[in-house]
């Protein structure tokens, strides 16, 4: 049972107070105030009333003013106020409601009416408070769910690589666009050894944190088994058994896993319930990899997955994706579909993997238009050039500005010896000058210790690759966007241009931090 509610009676006439107190005292705890000021004081006290019966005509401060002040105060504004008055003109009633009263009782008072009104308003107030509390609880829960989704998304995005293995023979790019409610897509691309490239794309069923964690587990298991097992069938067979254990949420994963020998082009792959990847041939024809090697992963223990092998031709592009691509909906709820994707791949130059993947994501986004993205969209594209290295030159310099000349001189000689055009030669010189200058100027805190900067030139069939390694502090030169190329002479800052030039002059540029070294890999087309 609720404790007895408190009712404050405010009137300058003690007789009137007595009448009301007598009428209500059996069911309520009664309080009294003989003036407006006393009423305000009582309303703000520790034992606040639950309802106020307020006389209008009082000397000094009338009932309207008392009510106005109660409603203006955060601590008292929710206490319901009922005016009690001898006056019954409608004008006064309007004024009473204007200042925030909830009801009006006119004298002479009918005991039944008084009791009924008081009871009703107390009940109403209680219900309103309960509703408010429930609303707050819902808001908090929604916030908690949103936080959980955000954590899940962070896990998911931090798990997939954004720097891809750069080999002479392959070019890789991948991207994952999470839906608002996480769906658990993932991809991976890493070198197992100097010639084996592992590629995978997967899609975990389910949403939210459980799916994200399951995805993290799947990706980690695949990577760990791939380090010692070169059979995609065997890797997925083991991952399946591992994931089946303790899979209480009944989640499952579709996976396409491939290992490419970058020297021979041999492609070993297993498709576990995943949608079919494509190979885009040099002549733009499409090949669909329709081989299936077993059901989805994590559904049934003890399954043995199979695998296929084939050879990629030079200039083939292996294109992996999740069903978020083909099931992307436009506002009319029509899916993007296989036909549209195939058409895109036939028209687009897929050899430039980064450009083509981004173009596809753009195409999907404009197809979806304003429609809500319901599933993760993942795309991984691997262009196999099969290029072999024709010539290599490696050299190391100490971190002195004048040594940059040794690099550019070596570049001159290398270019001349291998018939590389002067335009390429000078662009590479500029880029070496700017990047190595940056390293020497800003990379080292211990100015007195000598450091070595290693540079490798690799001439391939279609491009020249330049690799710069240094042991300076971690710094990704390509992180910052240079702004201000369009500024006037007065507005231009002196400096900050070098990286912008590098980005524009080179065909590709990449940074990664590996074993205490900054590694920059650049390519320029020959």
């Amino acid at each position, binding site marked *: 049972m609720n404790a007895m509610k408190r009712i404050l009676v405010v009137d300058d006439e003690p007789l009137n107070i007595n009448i009301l107190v007598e009428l209500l005292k059996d069911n309520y705890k009664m309080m009294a105030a003989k003036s407006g000021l006393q009423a305000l004081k009582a309303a703000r006290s520790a034992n606040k009333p639950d309802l106020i019966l307020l006389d209008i005509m009082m000397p000094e401060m009338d009932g309207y003013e008392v009510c106005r002040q109660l409603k203006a105060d955060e601590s008292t504004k929710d206490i319901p106020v009922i005016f009690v008055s001898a006056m019954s003109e409608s004008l006064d009633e309007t004024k009473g409601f204007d200042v925030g009263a909830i009801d009006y009782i006119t004298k002479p008072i009918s005991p039944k009416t008084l009791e009924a009104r008081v009871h009703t308003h107390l009940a109403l107030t209680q219900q309103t408070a309960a509703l408010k509390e429930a609303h707050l609880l819902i808001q908090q829960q929604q916030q908690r769910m949103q936080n959980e989704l955000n954590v899940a998304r962070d896990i998911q995005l931090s798990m997939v690589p954004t720097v891809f293995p750069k080999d002479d023979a392959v070019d890789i790019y991948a991207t994952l666009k999470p839906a608002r409610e996480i769906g658990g897509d993932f991809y991976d691309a890493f070198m197992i050894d100097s010639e084996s490239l592992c590629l995978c794309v997967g899609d975990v069923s389910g949403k939210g944190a459980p799916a994200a964690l399951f995805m993290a587990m799947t990706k980690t298991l695949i990577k760990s088994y791939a380090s010692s097992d070169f059979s995609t069938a065997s890797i997925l067979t083991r991952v399946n058994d591992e994931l089946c254990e303790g899979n209480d949420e009944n989640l499952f994963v579709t996976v396409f896993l491939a290992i490419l020998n970058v020297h021979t082009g041999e492609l070993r792959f297993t498709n576990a319930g995943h949608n079919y990847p494509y190979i885009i041939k040099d002549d733009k024809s499409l090949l669909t990899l329709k081989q299936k090697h077993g059901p989805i992963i994590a559904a049934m223990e003890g399954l043995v997955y199979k695998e296929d092998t084939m050879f990629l031709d030079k200039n083939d592009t292996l294109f992996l994706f999740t069903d978020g691509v083909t099931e992307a909906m436009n506002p009319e709820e029509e899916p993007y579909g296989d036909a549209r994707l195939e058409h895109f791949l036939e028209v687009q130059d897929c050899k430039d993997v980064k450009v083509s993947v981004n173009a596809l994501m753009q195409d999907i986004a404009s197809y979806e238009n304003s429609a809500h993205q319901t599933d993760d969209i993942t795309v991984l594209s691997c262009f196999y050039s099969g290029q072999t290295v024709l010539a290599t030159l490696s050299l190391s310099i100490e971190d002195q500005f004048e040594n940059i000349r040794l690099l550019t001189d070596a570049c001159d000689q290398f270019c001349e010896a291998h018939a590389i055009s002067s335009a390429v030669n000078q662009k590479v010189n500029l880029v070496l000058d700017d990047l190595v200058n940056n390293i020497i100027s800003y990379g080292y805190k211990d100015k007195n210790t000598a450091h070595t900067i290693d540079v490798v030139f690799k001439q391939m069939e279609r491009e020249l690759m330049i690799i710069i390694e240094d042991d300076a502090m971690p710094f990704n030169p390509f992180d910052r966007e240079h702004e201000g190329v369009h500024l006037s*002479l*007065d507005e231009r800052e002196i400096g900050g241009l070098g990286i912008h030039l590098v980005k524009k002059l080179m065909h590709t540029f990449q940074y990664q931090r590996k074993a205490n070294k900054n590694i920059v890999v650049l390519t320029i087309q020959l």
Partner: protein
Amino acid sequence: MQLTYSEKNGYKVVHFEGSLDTVTSPEVEKTINALIDADTVKFVFNFDKTRYMSSSGLRVLLATAKKLKGKGELKISNLNEMIEEVFDISGFNQILNVYKTEEEALA
């Protein structure tokens, strides 16, 4: 980097032979500043014999143009294809006075 000079139509014509980069830029900047301090304020920089120019070189040009603003002139001529591309990428072709040939710059 080798700098050679000639006087034509009231302009100091400077030829830059070699590469304007990290190693050569500080010296070149010093030389040009000395000329400006000695009241030479009208220049044509002829890059006919310049192989490449890195951002260190661009920095010298920008600094020189800013120094001469309001009291002199800086004209640029004879950019090779590669340096022209660098000017284009960096927007320098819009903020500096660039001419195809030295003759056009002097006209």
